[in-house]
């Protein structure tokens, strides 16, 4: 069907110097972008002597998964030597409730802001936007004190709360913009029919917000997984997320630096967001654009 819209078949070849430059520049920059990933990958598959003697770019002589095994179950973070797998499960435990909570709260706030003219809605929205641009460092100390007083400091609940709070601006913005694009008549008709606040939200608005919820989820999963600062400060020793553990492993390896183990651990940590990115593809870009362009 496309043939009617776009010309099919090859375009007449016009190989100008500009075109040649184009096809030279793009692969070179692609190489620049891919090299670190490639190097991480091959380094993690090499043995230590091979790393020391060979070139950083060379292909590993034998595929050696020792480093990956060590990284996941034996590498040391200071005191314990359980590898990065504890960090992985900690991250999962932080991730699931945080993502769920922040999306739920964001959806409700966005819905309230766009349909119910609550008092102070504009002020709240402006405040959220300001918070979104502030450096986290400003809030950390007051929050640590507050959490310690409330008795949720250094706990799973604490970190989930923090992620929900810091995710609120972006999530609210996403949902608000989505709901604002829906016709107001829809909302009015539902009210005339006697539906209340929650009923309109659950039965009408939520089903229409599935696409934006997917975008929000991708955004939050990557963001929370990659978080380092908040995980470092708010989780306490037992719940350290993967990124913090990774940094500890690399920073604390005593004696000989095991580069292959370091790189394997790095790859393991990068795996989750990378998978999400390559699976979600366009949605990921849409998420960034939706979060950004309308900010």
């Amino acid at each position: 069907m496309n043939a009617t819209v776009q010309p099919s078949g090859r375009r007449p070849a016009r190989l100008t110097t500009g075109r040649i430059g184009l096809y030279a520049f793009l692969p070179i920059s692609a190489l620049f972008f891919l090299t670190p990933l490639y190097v991480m990958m091959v380094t993690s598959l090499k043995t230590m002597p091979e790393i020391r003697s060979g070139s950083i770019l060379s292909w590993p002589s034998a595929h050696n998964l020792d480093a990956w095994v060590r990284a996941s179950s034996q590498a040391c973070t200071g005191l314990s030597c359980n590898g990065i797998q504890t960090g992985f499960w900690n991250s999962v435990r932080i991730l699931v409730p945080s993502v769920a909570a922040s999306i739920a709260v964001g959806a409700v706030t966005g819905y309230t802001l766009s349909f119910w003219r609550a008092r102070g809605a504009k002020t709240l929205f402006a405040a959220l936007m300001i918070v979104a641009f502030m450096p986290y460092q400003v809030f950390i100390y007051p929050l640590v004190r507050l959490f310690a007083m409330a008795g949720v400091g250094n706990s799973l609940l604490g970190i989930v709360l923090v992620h929900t709070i810091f995710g609120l601006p972006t999530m609210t913005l996403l949902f608000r913009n989505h709901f604002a694009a829906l016709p107001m008549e829809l909302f009015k008709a539902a009210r005339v029919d006697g539906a209340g606040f929650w009923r309109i939200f659950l039965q009408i608005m939520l089903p229409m917000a599935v696409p934006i919820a997917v975008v929000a989820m991708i955004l939050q999963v990557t963001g929370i997984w990659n978080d380092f600062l908040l995980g470092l400060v708010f989780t306490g020793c037992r719940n350290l997320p993967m990124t913090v553990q990774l940094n500890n492993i690399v920073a604390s390896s005593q004696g000989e630096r095991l580069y292959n183990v370091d790189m394997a651990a790095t790859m393991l940590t990068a795996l989750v967001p990378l998978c999400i990115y390559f699976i979600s593809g366009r949605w990921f870009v849409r998420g960034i654009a939706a979060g950004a362009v309308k900010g």
Partner: protein
Amino acid sequence: MSLTASRMLPNNNFVGLRQYATLIDNGRWQVSVVNLALFGVLFLAASLVLGFILAALIDQRVRAESLLRSVFLYPFSMSFIVIGLAWRWLLDPTLGIEKLLHDIGLTGAHFDWLIRPDRVIFTLVLTAVWHASGLVMAIMLAGLRGIDREIWNAARVDGISTWRTLVFIVAPMLRGSFATAFVLLATSVVRLYDLSVATTNGGPGIASELPAKFVMDYLFDRGNIGLAAAAAAAATTMLATVAMVVAPWFYWQTRRSRQAGMA
């Protein structure tokens, strides 16, 4: 909090602006502010330019467009810790790129920026540009796709070369995309913490300290809450500078939407 003498524990001894005076005299803070300025300017300029070039080239109907797009954007999905470690390995003076250069015969080549106090900040710039220019590319590409093809055709009829059209006609039309990318990157600059922890941990010495890291160090490792709070407040002031740049953008956005409303 920034007006008290708090150290390990918060107290309420009011000392006026003394913490701010201490802060300004603190050599480490001075280094970190200079670093931030240097890093911010270079990083913003480089990522915006590189992102724009990539977007412009990809927009020329190249083959394997979606493949290239994912290649350019994938670093953005990774954690700063991950990319910091990856680059630290690449830039490692004994086993990284320097060794590679030596192996191919350039024995005189030096690429030890990571351990040179006067150069280390540039390695952070390099890493951050690698991380963020894909994002700029995605935003710019969305902008470019929104521009009417007729403009290109009209310029060609008028005999204007492609790159002149791009720089003088199309780029100004992408003001909105530029502003968006700028705001996003600028806020990330002020927050930057993880990257410097993972790549250099502020070192060698204090050569790559950044304000965000300064705040965290004084808050938790060095037990000087008053000074940290002053630093946080100072960082916010810097952010206010960014906000002054943002304000015209918001103004421009609302004006545009108003115009769209009239049209």
